[in-house]
């Protein structure tokens, strides 16, 4: 090719890539070709792309290291516009036609990153250097910080709203198997055969796990591929088994609640994506038993310049050749401390790649020696790679001879050239999920790994099989899976059926690994200005061995401190490759053993999960419920603006064309006071209470007394919490001696219902009462104003509406517009008013009939704002606006609503007598009149004694409610003032200032009843 790209693609008999289906894609602005079955990573490697990223701190060039979820370097930005997604791992991005991938680091380009200039001074930027500098002068910090921030971050957040959708799905299964590798497949099959409900999830596009990378192994005489194909086919035939691929179990919570996210569309070309389908689905799986078969990740060995592009893990190298048919170079060096790397080496050599093995062990497995020998692979045993050579890609390695017992350099070795370098330090089991809810892995020195035991958490229903348990040999893993599953199935009252399953393999028996994590280089730079080449532990965060050593030197001795000081394992890979190396290197620096050092805490997410998937359906219109009344459509048609009241949506005001809120509210208020208005009051909570002890119950629940309330009458009640603070209010009607109907505030209904039930069930079960929420049953139209009787009379002939027959605070049953109705003569405005309650099915009809009937009186529907003005004119409180949870009835000047003589100590009563609550100079609710009648105080204005503002200014209280009263032709307000009730009546002390928006406004403390103090208006 013209820009001398290398083609690393080979024809491989087992490759899962379909060479007949080429796909074109772009990366970092350049076009490339890959094939169906490729990941972005395999396609880039096939195209010989080495540098895919620049490192976070030092701007060093970085290449692809892994082949899956463990990848720390190859973070890419996929797609553009509303679909752009940052920080995906190229190793997990499936290729599709037209895929557009961008880099997430490197400025101005991948080839040259400005950070790398700074990176040249990396010796001055060790772990935590920012804590020691950027301090002086103090004023400069924002500027320093700005520069630091400019260097921050990988990918870019989308800036357009997401156009794709997500949802959740709940599962309840007998057994969840996490991981569809050889052991997971076997586990699922054994369970599936027993008939229990099984769910198998695997994060990859295809089942098989690491078997996909080791096609040459034979299981029960079958090739790995055929063996798994058989199992998959049988699983597919079992109706009690569900398989989800591309599904990552990312969190395990209490009692085996597993969250897993399924990617449904990201692997499809745009043209094949379906707008009615989800982009991702989050599964919430409640499993009686869980089998973790999550496998393991190979960790690389740590050595100088180990971050050069072209350096990867041995299993990644193996995976690329065997699964994707990509040889990552022409001349490979593979360093290992164990047997694992040999299979890949052999496979690579068979594909024609020159391979050299550097085995840190003195003695290598004779069987592998034999095989490598046959293929002409040179093996250096007892050597290690102390340093990689190269600038923007690996070009060779320096070998050192290692001590036989200690990890020290005992001699020098040759330099070997290569274009790809792989290493294997052993496997690190994927123990993450096991640990999310408190499980801990154990160090196994023989396996050189933090492992989890097969049935160590059996009592929690969690079992583990395969590589996660430290069993790395396939045959042993399969055999143990069988044993573990027998145990699981016994727990589920089932027996195991393993007929026809051959589990023996043709693997080469494993010989012991060497305990080595960091290859020494033998250099002594102590006290000199010379440094070692950096040996990286955590690639994503540029954490080098020297950083860990520095942290320890500075007394960051807990592994959690080391993590936090160096950022080890902090990246988007969460240290899948780096953590164990870090623990080991820390252990060495601390002079401790690895288990003494321990691990950091494994937390969700196992791999990152989109906010969209977490949110599921709870976005947009279904974010949170909206509750509507039966008249919603009518209100909308009438031009209402709405207000949230708790979960309810209520009309706020009904603006006519050209009106603003003020004009509309003034009009609504005047119409109501002068003729008739109507309010949708359906949202008030309503609780039907029955039983012989209702009165006693109400006496205990409410501050006021209920013993005397006669049938046919209503009464206002104040509800206190046990601390004596007002929590709700409303009118309760006596229907019969044993039947009451309570109303509550709109926002407080559910809380009150629970409150009543709780006291009844827990404290007073002896009281014979039942209560039922009837809020939704009743639709309530409040007909308010001097003409309300006239309007009602047109529709209601079976109730005598006359002044004396149907008195203020009475209720009556009858019909309104031909519909059975319960009518209350109560008033929240001080006007003659009726609240008409009907079965909500008729709600809209009755509302409209009332509107028609009121037409001749110019009936005016009004919303919550006008309701607030009208009630404020009368000095009525709104709980939640004029109270804030710190207000007693006495503070509200509502002693009349407190029955101090009731025999039972009603809820909150005792609290009213506490030394602080019983003070008489508390903040008290009063009326406020601004000196200038045209000035409407700001709700939330603070009240102070003088207009002199020199902080701190003592505050007396604040304005809770404030309106322009069209009826009075002036502004009015309510608010709290220390000792306000006394001050109100004391000339000279009754002036305060309301402070808001930088202005102090002179205000007079007055009674809070501004209109009709005698109550003449409602008494007509």
């Amino acid at each position, binding site marked *: 090719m013209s820009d001398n790209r290398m083609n690393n693609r080979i024809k491989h008999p087992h490759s899962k890539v379909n060479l007949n289906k080429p796909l074109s894609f772009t990366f970092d602005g350049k076009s490339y070709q890959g094939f169906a079955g490729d990941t972005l990573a395999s396609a880039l490697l096939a195209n010989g792309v080495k540098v895919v990223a620049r490192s976070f701190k030092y701007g060093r060039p970085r290449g692809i290291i892994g082949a899956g979820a463990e990848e720390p370097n190859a973070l890419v930005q996929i797609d553009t516009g509303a679909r752009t*997604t*940052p920080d995906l791992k190229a190793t997990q991005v499936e290729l599709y036609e037209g895929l557009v991938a961008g880099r997430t680091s490197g400025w101005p380009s991948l080839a040259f990153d400005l950070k790398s200039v700074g990176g040249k001074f990396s*010796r*001055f930027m*060790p772990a935590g250097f920012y*804590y*020691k*500098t*950027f*301090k*002086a002068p*103090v004023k400069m*910090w924002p500027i320093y*910080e700005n520069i630091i*921030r*400019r260097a*921050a*971050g*990988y*990918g*870019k*957040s*989308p800036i357009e709203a*997401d156009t794709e959708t997500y949802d*959740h799905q709940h599962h309840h299964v007998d057994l969840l198997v996490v991981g569809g590798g050889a052991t997971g497949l076997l586990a699922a099959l054994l369970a599936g055969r027993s008939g229990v409900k099984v769910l198998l999830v695997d994060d990859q596009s295809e089942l098989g796990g690491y078997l996909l990378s080791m096609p040459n192994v034979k299981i029960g005489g079958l090739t790995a591929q055929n063996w798994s194909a058989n199992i998959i086919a049988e699983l597919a035939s079992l109706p009690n088994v569900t398989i989800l691929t591309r599904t990552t179990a990312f*969190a395990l*919570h*209490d009692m085996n609640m597993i969250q897993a996210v399924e990617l449904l569309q990201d692997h499809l070309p745009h043209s094949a994506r379906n707008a009615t389908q989800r982009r991702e689905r*989050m599964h919430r799986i409640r499993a009686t038993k869980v089998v973790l078969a999550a496998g393991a990740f190979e960790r690389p060995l740590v050595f100088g310049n180990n971050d050069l592009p072209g350096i990867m893990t041995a299993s990644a190298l193996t995976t690329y050749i065997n699964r994707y048919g990509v040889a990552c170079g022409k001349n490979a060096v593979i360093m290992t401390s164990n047997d694992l790397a040999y299979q890949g080496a052999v496979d690579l050599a068979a594909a024609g790649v020159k391979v050299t093995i550097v085995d840190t062990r003195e003695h290598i497995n004779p069987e592998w020696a034999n095989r490598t020998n046959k293929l002409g692979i040179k093996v250096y045993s007892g050597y290690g790679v102390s340093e990689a050579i190269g600038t923007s890609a690996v070009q060779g390695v320096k070998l050192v001879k290692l001590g036989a017992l200690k990890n020290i350099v005992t001699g020098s070795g040759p330099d070997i050239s290569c274009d790809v370098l792989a290493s294997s330090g052993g496997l690190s089991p994927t123990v993450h999920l096991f640990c999310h809810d408190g499980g801990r892995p154990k160090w196994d020195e023989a396996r050189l790994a933090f492992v989890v035991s097969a049935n160590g958490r059996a009592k929690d229903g969690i079992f583990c099989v395969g590589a996660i348990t430290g069993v790395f040999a396939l045959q042993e893993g399969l055999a143990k899976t069988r044993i573990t599953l027998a145990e699981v199935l016994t727990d589920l009252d089932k027996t195991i059926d393993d007929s026809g399953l051959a589990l023996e393999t043709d693997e080469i028996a494993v010989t012991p690994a060497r305990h080595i994590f960091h290859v020494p280089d033998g250099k002594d730079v102590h006290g000199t200005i010379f440094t070692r080449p950096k040996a990286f532990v955590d690639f994503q965060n540029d954490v080098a061995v*020297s950083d860990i050593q*520095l942290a320890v030197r500075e007394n*960051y001795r*807990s592994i*959690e*401190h080391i993590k*936090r000081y160096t950022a080890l394992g*902090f990246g988007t890979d*969460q240290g899948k490759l780096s953590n164990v190396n870090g623990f080991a290197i820390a252990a060495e620096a601390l002079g401790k053993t690895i288990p003494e050092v321990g691990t950091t805490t494994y937390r*969700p*997410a196992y791999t*990152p999960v*989109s*906010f*969209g998937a977490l949110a*599921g359906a*709870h976005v947009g219109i279904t974010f949170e419920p909206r509750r509507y009344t039966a008249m919603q459509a009518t209100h909308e048609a009438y031009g209402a603006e709405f*207000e949230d009241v708790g979960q309810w949506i209520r009309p706020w005001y009904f603006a006519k064309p050209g009106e603003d809120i003020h004009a509309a509210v003034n009009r609504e208020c005047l119409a109501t006071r002068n003729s008739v208005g109507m309010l949708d009051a359906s949202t008030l909570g309503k609780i039907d209470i029955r039983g012989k002890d209702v009165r006693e119950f109400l006496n205990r629940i409410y501050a006021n007394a209920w013993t005397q309330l006669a049938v046919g009458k209503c009464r206002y009640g104040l509800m206190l919490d046990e*601390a004596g603070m007002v929590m709700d209010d409303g009118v309760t009607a006596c229907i019969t001696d044993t039947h009451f109907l309570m109303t509550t505030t709109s926002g407080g209904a559910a809380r009150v219902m629970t409150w009543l039930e709780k006291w009844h069930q827990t404290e007073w079960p002896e009281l014979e009462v039942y209560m039922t929420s009837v809020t939704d049953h009743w639709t309530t139209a409040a007909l308010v104003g001097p003409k309300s009787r006239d309007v009602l009379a047109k529709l209601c002939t079976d109730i005598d509406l006359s002044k004396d027959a149907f008195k203020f605070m009475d209720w009556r049953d009858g019909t309104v517009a031909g519909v059975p109705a319960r009518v209350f003569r109560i008033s929240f405005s001080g006007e003659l008013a009726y609240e008409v309650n009907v079965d909500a099915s008729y709600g809209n009809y009755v509302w409209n009939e009332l509107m028609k009937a009121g037409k001749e009186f110019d009936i005016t529907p009004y919303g919550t704002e006008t309701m607030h003005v009208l009630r404020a004119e009368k000095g009525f409180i709104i709980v939640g*606006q004029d109270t*804030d949870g710190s207000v007693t009835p006495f503070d509200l000047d509502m002693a009349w609503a407190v029955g101090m003589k009731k025999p039972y100590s009603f809820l909150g009563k005792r609290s009213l007598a*506490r030394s*602080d609550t019983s003070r008489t100079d508390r903040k008290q609710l009063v009326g406020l009149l601004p000196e200038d009648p045209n000035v409407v105080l*700001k709700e*939330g*204005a*603070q009240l102070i004694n003088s207009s002199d503002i020199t*902080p*701190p200014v003592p505050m007396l209280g*604040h304005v809770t409610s404030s309106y322009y009263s069209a009826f009075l032709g002036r502004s009015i307000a309510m608010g709290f003032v220390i000792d306000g009730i006394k001050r109100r009546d004391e000339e000279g002390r009754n002036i305060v200032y309301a402070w808001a928006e*930088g202005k102090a406004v002179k205000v007079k403390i007055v009674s809070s009843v501004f209109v009709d103090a005698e109550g003449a208006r409602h008494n007509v």
Partner: protein
Amino acid sequence: MKKDYSIWKLLSQGLKNHEGWTPTWRNPELKPSYDVVIIGAGGHGLATAYYLAKEHGIKNIAVLEKGYLGGGNTARNTTIVRSNYLWDEAAMLYEHSLKLWEGLTEDLNFNVMFSQRGVFNLGHTLQDMRDIERRVNANNLNGIDALTLNAQEVKDRIPMINISKNTRFPILGASFQPRGGVARHDAVAWGFARAASNYGVDIIENCEVLGMDIVNGNMKGLQTTKGYIATSKVGCVTAGHSSVMAKAAGIRMPLESHPLQAFVSESLKPILDTVVMSNAVHGYVSQSDKGELVIGAGIDHYLSYAQRGSPHIIEHTAAAIIELFPMFSRVRMNRQWGGIVDTTPDACPIISKTKVKGLYFNCGWGTGGFKATPGSGNVFAHTIANDEAHPLNAAFSLDRFHSGHLIDEHGAAGVAH
């Protein structure tokens, strides 16, 4: 105190392979007795020890920590710092703290990365806006910077925010405190540890207090996993575990320990340069200097000491963040975790003497005590040293739960912060 952290030292050490750096805090042997023992090496405990040594001249102090220092809530909070509380008592205490934050990096000679990028508290209902107005006015009268913004003004400052009226909880406005911001949580613990250690304070990690030796109502000493320690003054600063300590002292506290969770996204190029909090939709978010979105969730309502919470809380928070910032839907959560917060009935802390002479408690910071770290340590040190409350914490005594003089900050404290 030695103030040897500087760019010059860094450069010179850079040339010497950083071999000359000394321990950030000493690793001393535990002594058999101390004048004052602080239980809990979180930010508050370490700050207390620091100010005891620095301002009250007490030298023989130990801070005991059952795990690693700074590993409690200090390690797991979303680091929001602000002082715009409603009631005078709380506002003054948090403002005292905010002032100390402003000089903390210099005072400790440790860059705590205190970044005054401003804090928005969004309002979504008319009542939210009334409460905001009330709080902002109170703040201004207390000399605390704060302003009320309408929805458009919020949008002008945070261009990505969704102020559409069609959302479930449309943004109607916000309060904004420009001096608020975030700080690097770990640095705060380490900076105080280093400074306290320099004053001779012994910080003992992996030392759990198991029991208290109280004779006739007087503090005599502590049983710990490292043995008995004689002391007549104990400051208990154990956050989520305060009730456990109280039980050891034979007293009860008005505390409930709940899980509070948070999560971070993957690291992104800077996109959000301030702190946004919303009580109505239950979420808050800022972006750290490393680039991850740091997002706080709500509490679980059950008691827990397990340092993890329920996933539906996190799910809801993700939804809330999308409601505010629909473009973050494709951003991914990298890690989630939980802390144990000690909540009080009035969402205000307890900084108080107790019935036991020589035993002091500093707790109840609930979801929002990180911001108070320096101020809390400062007044608590005073309280311990003088056996009498500092004027700024007098109102935060245990007595208030008997007198009824609660300082109800639920409105300003909101979900969590």
